[in-house]
């Protein structure tokens, strides 16, 4: 036990130190900084017992225990790292341990190759995706309908298209990002029509992102204090990251598609 704590401490020190010199990802044992906040829970049996009294004989049942034992007292556990993680409130996570440029080493994607069909992992991807697909069962029949509608609406003309990039290319880009943008959580949020997120992204020649997406309206989002907007922002960023590489463009015309502004607007889908 002692040893574990000590080791953990040392590893922390290492991790923090190394973070400044852009730690390669293969150093596997990075220990997470943030402490987990423990919350006390009332025993369900207590509640259940209380409910099991037949109503017809309404004798006042003595309470099995003092009710709470409630989640109030946020016990601080003696943890090696003192940094307290904020609980549910969507404050910015302490990401001190993140190396700033985010190296992402284990991505065997050649940076400069002309026609990159990389993704060559020593894994049976087909078998995996079969499993993954199977787990994505759609339960309600209505889902099928709404998807069909979405599919149909996707064929709308390009808005705000650059005059050099062909409309068909823009359509491809829009379709790709739309496919990766998961908005199921957003469209049920209050006032979804306001949760617009604008991202600037830059692409490498192989269609990968050349850096982290920039949130154009980040200031507005942060100042709004609207936590749903923050979630919308995370979803949009996740979408463009999940979607790369965007390898359907003509490499010869790289100058025309190396930078995009993507305006994620959920209002139409929310149907409000």
């Amino acid at each position: 036990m002692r040893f574990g704590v000590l080791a953990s401490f040392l590893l922390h020190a290492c991790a923090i130190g190394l973070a400044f010199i852009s730690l390669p990802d293969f150093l596997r044992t990075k220990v997470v900084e943030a402490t987990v906040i423990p919350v006390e829970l009332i025993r369900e049996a207590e509640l259940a017992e209380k409910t099991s009294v037949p109503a017809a004989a309404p004798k006042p049942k003595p309470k099995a225990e003092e009710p709470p034992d409630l989640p109030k007292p946020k016990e601080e556990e003696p943890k090696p790292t003192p940094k307290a993680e904020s609980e549910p409130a969507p404050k910015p996570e302490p990401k001190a341990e993140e190396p700033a440029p985010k190296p992402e080493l284990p991505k065997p994607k050649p940076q400069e190759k002309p026609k990159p069909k990389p993704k060559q992992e020593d894994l049976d991807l087909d078998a995996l995706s079969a499993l993954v697909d199977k787990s994505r069962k759609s339960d309600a029949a209505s889902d099928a309908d709404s998807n069909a509608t979405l599919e149909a609406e996707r064929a709308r003309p390009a808005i705000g298209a650059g005059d050099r990039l062909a409309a068909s290319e823009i359509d491809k880009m829009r379709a790709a990002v739309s496919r990766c943008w998961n908005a199921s959580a957003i469209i049920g949020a209050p006032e979804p029509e306001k949760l617009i997120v604008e991202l600037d992204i830059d692409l490498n020649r192989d269609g990968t992102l050349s850096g982290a997406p920039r949130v154009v309206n980040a200031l507005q989002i942060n100042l709004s204090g609207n936590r749903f907007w923050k979630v919308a922002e995370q979803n949009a960023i996740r979408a463009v990251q999940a979607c790369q590489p965007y390898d359907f463009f003509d490499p010869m015309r790289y100058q025309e598609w190396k930078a995009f502004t993507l305006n994620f607007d959920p209002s139409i889908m929310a149907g409000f």
Partner: protein
Amino acid sequence: MIRQAVLAILAAMIGFAATPAGARVRIDITQANVEPMPIAVPDFMGGDSDMTGLGRDITGVIMADLDRSGLFSVIDQRAYVEKLSSVDVRPRFADWRIINAQVLVAGEVRQTPDGRIEVATRVWDVYSNEQLGAVSFKTPADNWRRAAHKVADFVYKSLTGEEGYFDTRIVYVYETGPKEKRTKRLMIMDQDGANPVLLTDGLNYQALTPRFSPTQQQITYMALFDNKPGQVYLFNIETGEQEQLGTFRGMTFAPRFTPDGTRVLMSMERAGNSDVFQMELATRRLTRLTDNPGIDVSPTMSPDGRRIAFTSDRGGAEQIYVMNSDGSGQKRITFGDGRYQTPVWSPRGDLIAFTRLYQGRFYIGVIRPDGSGERLLTESYLDEGPTWAPNGRVLMFFREASPGSGPSLWSVDLTGRNLRRVRTPGDSSDPAWSPPLP
């Protein structure tokens, strides 16, 4: 907050400086996939074999909760590449990206020195490599289901911004016997169908239209007797005690707590006509809120306590009206064909759910309190009696899918997606969602 803002400004400035205007191609993304978000939930780790088994059980409850929400689809565990060793070790994100997971929920169960368990969880964004949140719950070991629901609530909130609703319960009417002589008893269960417990014995009366107090472990419902008018009751879930809410010659029915839990709105019938009343629980003082020769039923108060919606047939067919909480300013808000009944104000305040009857079919729908934006979410032979999840995103109601089929409970997202049957031991109606458990 200020630091955040400054950072944001800096980020914005850098963004501007780095990219010459005009070089960017601008695209509006107005369509998204509304598939459930793929999420990985490996079995929660446990030190010894006891904890490992418990970890697996807890994971099962979490997965079922998240899956049922319709917002997430849990990827089959057999596809997972990385085997996590500790909740405190940073996962190998590439291993989770490769199976298309967008989010990873890592957890661990350990025994505390005082013999309880601690369930620790971290939620990871697999693409940004960032932790979206972390939490741990300490609880007696036999309370593990609630700990699991709390974890699911935490994951839900981390990913939607909305409070979760998994650590909640449902009270409903459990129906047995032939239609002409139906036994109707109150039953309570966890939101996921676990731990069903009967609350009333059904011998002397049929229990109808139960509703949870928003503040206490208490239910109000209507008892329908033989040969005397039905009456509104209060039922204390903790003690099993119940009491009639006042004694009246006429029938009292359609009760519903006000959002602060201090009063019960209900209808009372006098000489055949029903109006809306309000009873203050502390003093048992009854106040009349409507006085109209038409039927006024099903009152429901807005979460800010300022307005009340109800059903009235004063204009002919039943429609929904809204008035101030003192009964003034009564105003009709629905004008569609057919009949509108059972308005229920969303705990979020932005919508009113209702039952609509139109050309022999029943619908559950939502409408804004000003009467705009009506949307129908479900349709069947009989869909009735919506109740809101405490976060105002999910509705439960009961359905008789076809003529003669028994009633069952269903849930649907307020977007109309993710329609699902709710597991109950038998025929069930009149569901009412509890507030989050304490």
